[in-house]
């Protein structure tokens, strides 16, 4: 039976103009696991919202579970049977205690007492949150919150789950756990799953993949089949690392099969002699990096034994940094890896003189130790020379036009006229938003990836010596992520020093000269990328996984 039947649906937020979904038709069988792929802004989220009647098409018909979404009386049964989990874990919870949030749906549906208790118990059990049921939602991690959002939907015993990039804000371990849960619900309970995602591993887990482009279905097939297409980039996608690797291997040894899955690749490699894997290693950026022993320049950042406590002196006090040290010499890139809450962001903010240390010694650009007696002028000088790009920096855009926002920081340091225009142009050109084309674009008309670039340009316009980046690629589609890595690579070539916080291990392997593995405010291990990424046990203890090449190596 078809769970979903869409016929010629068209939808525009601004009625009549710029449809986000164009004349789209689609049928889905019950029990299928379908993923929606495509670049930011291709219409994935809108399509999901059409399925459960949060949005109603202006023309065409959407039939979900055999019911027309345009009839108001159908909405309640549709939404009960078709639960939805959204991208941001924080913005979908209504209660301050975990189990009470799970009960929100059943309460709305006026479940009787016994049934409600059973539904809540079961949902918390499946999602592994039973022991946390009395916890305050503000004390849960992003991964736990997202599982709680799922529990809230499961408590209404749905037949179908709509998932809108549900793991894009989670760290690797939490993301894997969430994905495993979804796979189990699909296989064991027969729940139909429709999930929008950018993540190759998640896309490969599905039985059917639909790539969206400008509100239409570009292609429809199995993930394995679609990922082999030549022209993936036009949809913001990149081939999975296993496929790239097997293509490389095939150029070494002609009969090597082209594989998309990591497991299949390691199986195939096991049958080959070790020489072939060595060839793969050689080409990987992780093994091409030379150690930076030659750099004897005076450090521009020197942190010794730094500690930081949030809410110091209150019952809620927690230690965010505990005895952290870091030395960065000009031209180097240090990458901080660790899960949310490991202290990466706190450390970055110390490097920008936004936070002051409770213990330890922070010296920036030879100024220091930074403390309460550091003058405001010195702090402004530090922030001019050491730029900080915060998490989701597109949130800080506030001007109407791109050019004005990029000009904000250089204007603050007193630049005017030609010099100001030159700085703005340089920064915008560098991030790939050509000045002539983008300076007068309204910010709201930019795509997600373009907004990220504009925010980056807004900091680059200061032309500092050091750039601090907090999760720079989080939430971007694979192509935008590669574009960002190109920009950062260009900056490295220009001699800019970088400190990057990330939980994307492949990003760390690609960019780092030194890696600091952080966990609960401490640096567990630091060293060259290949040193740190060889510590597979330490990585998994810290909730991370090794980069692709190290995973394959470990599996062999």
């Amino acid at each position, binding site marked *: 039976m078809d769970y979903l039947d869409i016929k010629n649906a068209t939808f525009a937020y601004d009625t009549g103009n710029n449809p986000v979904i164009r004349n789209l038709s689609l049928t889905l069988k019950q029990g299928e696991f379908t993923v929606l792929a495509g670049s930011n802004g291709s219409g994935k989220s809108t399509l999901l919202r059409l399925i*459960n009647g*949060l949005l109603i098409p202006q023309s065409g018909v959407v039939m979900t579970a055999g019911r027309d979404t345009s009839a108001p009386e159908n909405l309640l049964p549709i*939404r*009960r049977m078709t*639960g939805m989990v*959204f991208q941001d874990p*924080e*913005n*979908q*919870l*209504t*209660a*301050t205690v975990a*189990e*009470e949030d799970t*009960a*929100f*749906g059943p*309460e*709305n*549906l*006026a479940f009787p*007492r016994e049934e*409600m208790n059973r539904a809540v118990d079961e949902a918390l059990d499946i999602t592994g949150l039973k022991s946390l049921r009395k916890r*305050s939602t*503000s004390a849960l991690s992003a991964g736990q919150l997202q599982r709680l959002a799922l529990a*809230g939907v499961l408590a*209404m015993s749905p037949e179908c789950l709509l998932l809108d990039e549900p793991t894009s804000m989670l760290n690797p371990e939490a993301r894997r756990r969430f994905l495993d849960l979804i796979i189990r619900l699909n296989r064991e309970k027969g729940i139909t799953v429709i999930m929008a995602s950018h993540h190759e591993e998640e896309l490969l887990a599905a039985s059917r993949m639909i790539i969206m482009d400008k509100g239409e279905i570009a292609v429809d097939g199995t993930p394995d089949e679609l990922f082999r297409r030549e022209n993936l980039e036009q949809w913001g996608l990149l081939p999975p690392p296993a496929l790239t690797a097997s293509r490389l291997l095939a150029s070494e040894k002609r009969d090597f099969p082209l594989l998309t899955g990591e497991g299949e690749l390691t199986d195939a490699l096991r049958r080959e002699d070790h020489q072939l894997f060595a060839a793969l290693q050689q080409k990987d950026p992780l093994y091409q990096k030379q150690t930076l022993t030659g750099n004897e320049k005076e450090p521009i950042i020197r942190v010794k034994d730094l500690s930081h406590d*949030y*809410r110091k002196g*209150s019952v*809620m006090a927690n230690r965010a940094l505990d005895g952290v040290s870091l030395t960065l010499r000009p031209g180097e890139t240090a990458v901080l890896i660790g899960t949310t809450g490991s202290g990466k962001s706190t450390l970055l*903010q110390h490097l920008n003189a*936004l*936070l*002051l240390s409770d213990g330890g010694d922070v010296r920036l650009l030879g100024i220091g130790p*930074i*403390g*309460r007696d550091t003058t*405001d002028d*010195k*702090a*402004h000088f530090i*922030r*001019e020379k050491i*730029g*900080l790009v*915060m*998490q989701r*920096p597109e*949130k*800080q855009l*506030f001007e109407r036009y791109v050019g004005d926002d990029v000009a*904000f*920081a250089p204007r*603050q*340091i007193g630049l005017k006229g030609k010099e100001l225009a030159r700085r703005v142009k340089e920064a915008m050109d560098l991030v790939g938003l050509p000045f002539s084309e983008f300076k007068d674009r309204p910010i709201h008309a930019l795509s997600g990836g373009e907004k990220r670039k504009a925010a980056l340009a*807004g*900091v680059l316009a*200061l032309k500092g010596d050091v750039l601090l980046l907090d999760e720079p690629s989080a939430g971007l589609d694979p192509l935008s992520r590669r574009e960002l890595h190109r920009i950062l690579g260009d900056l490295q070539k220009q001699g800019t020093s970088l400190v990057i916080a990330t939980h994307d291990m492949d990003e760390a392997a690609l960019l780092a000269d030194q890696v600091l593995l952080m966990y609960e405010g401490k640096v567990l291990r630091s060293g060259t990328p290949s040193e740190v990424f060889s510590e597979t046990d330490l990585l998994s203890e810290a909730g991370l996984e090794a980069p692709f090449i190290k995973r394959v190596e470990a599996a062999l």
Partner: protein
Amino acid sequence: MKELDFSRMFTLGQYLPGTSPLHRLTPQVKLIGIILLTAGLLVTSPVLGTLAGIGLLIILSLIAGIPMKFLFRNALPVLPFLILIALLQLFFTVAGNSPVLYSWGRFTITGAGVLNSLAIFLRFFALMGLLTLFTAVTPSREIGHGTENLTMPLARIGFPAHAFSLIITITFRFIPLLTEETESIMKAQTSRGARIGTAKNPVKRIISYMPILVPLFTASLQRAEQLAEAMEARCFRQGEERTRYVTYRYTLRDGIALGVSILFFGLFLLFRLGQWERVFIQ
């Protein structure tokens, strides 16, 4: 240089988990209790009434197992202002028939003046302590539940009792998120060189807040929209019949607490009406 760490600036209204009889009261009773006692303290006589209030506060804090120090810690930042106001009261209370205790040039200290400045301290500490005690034994969700239960009878005449309590709960849920958001936007703009609120010219000062206000409004609206979508997707409908996951049962403890609250409310009124403090003034 100042630090941008909000968590060190706000410590008010903290819940201290516990199982004391005070913690375990039904939320409705806690709410009625705090309303009665606050109202009583506001109208009661400045010295005897508030002293009785502080006495009650001490007993309650012992029952709840919450140290007095915790109750009054929030008073510290306000103390300098309080002292200033109390001093003004001391020197400038004009009371025709009140005995002059001390006089120096144009300044005179009268019995009424001493009484008034003393009262400011007592009343402030009593109210502050009481409210802190209330939030210390009442988790935010109970404030939502309690309000809903109290306003339920009004639902019959069309009052949206559940929506009202949902607003309270959601407010409690989102305040920390918005604080966090404000902090992160402020940090981002500061690191872009913004000098916020430091200009002397008032127009310039207001303009300097724009880089924070604009993104904050945008982000809040987005959050509101996403939350509304999520609630709708989970079958929320305004005004429809629904059941409740958490329910409360009244016990003897609640009856006693209610009785004590009413008793003290009466006592506070009595102090006001009795006017026994005139003795000090005349």
